[in-house]
């Protein structure tokens, strides 16, 4: 808790609080870096096993990265789930969690000098394109 407060206040005092923020406030994480992270997680987001109910669920998963761009396992948590019943939301969450942890095992290769901008991530998994029913 104390760390969160320290971090919050430190961030409030920081010169460049926005990820990808204003050009005159220092380097920002690039779209290429963000795309790289997205593509890496996509490769491991395996929806084959999901029920048709679970394929209706849009789930947002938050997690924290270590400075060498690995997801910190205990930090992966459900932020929000929309659609489907409880069992469907659970399996949708687990598929997203597997994607993050599986493809993050070797690190996501993000620029360490911009750690502040990608330390916390929220990924929304939307399977609308993946359903056939």
């Amino acid at each position, binding site marked *: 808790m104390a760390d969160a407060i320290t971090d919050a206040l430190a961030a409030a005092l920081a010169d460049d*609080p926005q990820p990808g923020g204003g050009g005159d406030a220092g380097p920002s994480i690039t779209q290429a870096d963000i795309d790289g*992270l997205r593509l890496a997680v996509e490769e491991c987001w395996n929806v*084959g096993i999901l029920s048709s109910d679970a394929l209706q669920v849009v789930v947002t998963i938050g997690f924290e990265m270590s400075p060498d761009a690995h997801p910190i396992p205990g930090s992966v948590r459900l932020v929000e789930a929309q659609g489907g019943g409880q069992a469907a939301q659970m399996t949708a969450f687990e598929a997203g969690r597997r994607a993050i942890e599986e493809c993050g095992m070797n690190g996501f290769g993000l620029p360490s000098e911009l750690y502040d901008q990608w330390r916390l991530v929220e990924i929304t998994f939307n399977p609308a394109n993946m359903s056939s029913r």
Partner: protein
Amino acid sequence: MIALTSKHPRAVVAALSALALGIASLLAASPAQAQAGGPLRIEITEGVIEPVPYAIPDFVAENAAGQQYAASLARVVANNLSGTGLLREIPASAHLGRIVSFDSPVQFSDWRAINAQALITGAVLVNGPNITVKFRLFDVVSGQQLGDGLQLDGRTDNWRRMAHRVSDAVYTRLTGESGYFDSRVVFIAESGPRENRRKQVAIMDQDGENVQFLTDGSALAFAPRFSPTGDRLLFTSYETGAPRVYLMDVATRRRQMLGDQPGTMAFAPRFSPDGQSVVYSLAVGGTTNLYLLNLGSGQRFQLTDTRAIDTAPSFSPDGQSVVFESDREGTSQLYVMDISTGATRRLSVGQGRYSTPVWSPRGDLIAFTKSNAGRFHIGVMRVDGSNERLLTASYLDEGPTWAPNGRVIMFTREQAGSDAALFSVDISGRNLRRVPTPGPASDPSWSPLMP
């Protein structure tokens, strides 16, 4: 957020510690706020569709008598799970770790090293005629158990059912679907030369084991269909010389003819969802209409009255509607009738001839046989007739039946010049595979999950 101008953040933090305590609860609840501007947000809409790799070592025998089931239980579960096409087993030959005790903590690194994403461990104990089977399911990637596992107690001669119930529990936890492995299939087993074919009603576990013959084949039998609780069967037989509908109790094999009417032919029977009535086709004097027979009262109601051939009726799971096949507009098409009002609407809209409709146990889809341009297909459509999708194509595919969870369909396939066999396919059209039977087989009907 608080706006401050001090150049010494640490001093500021110390000075504001009292205020910080006040906002601490907000921050602790959502650490995402700690990264100013919020976390990096990404949306992912594309993924992959691949079988999930899993490992299932032999179950641990917790006493000497359990040893004979330790490997067999795991093999039945693996056969079920891999058979779905959704999961891919990493064989024992590749395993680095071993499960020697059901309660010892799992070394996840051993299973990550062989790229397993799921791990199933189990244990078995046998005392005389009684068997206890336990299992646990783990997500190897995150190193966590999924669910609480399960313990099942039963009789050793039902050991396969225990394995099917373990399979259902694992499958349900991983997919979110309800299971379908603890179920049976009734079908027509064919034997003998083609000119003098023997057709018997047979029953087996959904994985092809435990085949038993329910009729002796002295008369031709067709279209066996399970009751909603799996305890009775309907089938059509020619033993009196003309097709008649029979009701059989699965456990006792005792059977009775339903409603004999001389000069008529009765066929294509199915149960209503409450198991109290049978809908079937009756051919009388050149027309074939649908009838509903109440098993308790013996009362018969005529449902259709046209000069067409109306057949292959199938109830919706809520018992309100019947989908059936009719050539009333020229070619064989699908129609849905509201049982209480009699109102009938046409369902099929595409090119070709549609037959053998079957309502999914989930109520959302209707499976059917379609023939068009010389090819046969098994397909599904929504109950309003929209979103027709063909799942298979061949020389002759027909007669779909639904698994109890509405995700898998079994049907008859006949290759040109060769015998009929049973096949199954996932609702997505993937994972087409042959269902093992002792010989040629046709006309499958899938039971509900066993109670």
